[in-house]
């Protein structure tokens, strides 16, 4: 019951109809502050190539340690 009252309150303030894919969250705290927050779902799927990205992040982070490891273990790295 209280949600309906809040939603009506929000609709009146913004003039936007509550329909379709638009998600309108009107929390009690936000209403107290007199605001209204809209959250939209992204239209495109998010694509991340985890395999490459994570590895590069790891490699860059460990570079200095790897160089020290080579210097400290010259018998493992003959030239």
């Amino acid at each position: 019951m209280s949600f309906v009252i809040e939603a009506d309150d929000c609709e009146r303030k913004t003039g936007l109809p509550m329909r379709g894919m638009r998600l309108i969250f009107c929390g009690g705290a936000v209403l107290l502050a007199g605001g209204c927050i809209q959250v939209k779902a992204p239209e495109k799927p998010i694509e991340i190539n985890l395999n490459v990205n994570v590895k590069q992040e790891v490699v860059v982070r460990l570079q200095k340690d790897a160089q020290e490891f080579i210097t400290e273990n010259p018998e493992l790295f003959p030239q």
Partner: protein
Amino acid sequence: MTRKTKLSFIAMAAAAALGMAGYAWAQAGDAALTAAIAAGQVGEQSDGYLGVAKPVGADVRAAVESLNIKRRAAYTDQAAKHGVALREWAATVGCQTLRGRVKPGQAYLLPDGVWRVKDSSPIALPANCG
């Protein structure tokens, strides 16, 4: 000198001889490996291990395998210390060997599986080397 003392002397001498022979054998393998690297027959791979680029003798092949086993043991230790996968630590080391340790005339292997010979320009490192 008692018989027992004599026997223990002989045993000690035999152990010393065996140890020296083993050491000499390992040294010979290392020397052959160094020569093979200089000749571009054996080279560094982007995965952090040594590889055979051209046909080599059994002694060199054995030295490569032996060194790679030692590397893997050390990599396993380091990967655990840094909280990453063995493969990731090994590849990080691979980036560094390709970046700094491979000299002109020496062979190296990139992820595309092609052995190349280093010239005077820097090696085109794999993208994940950053």
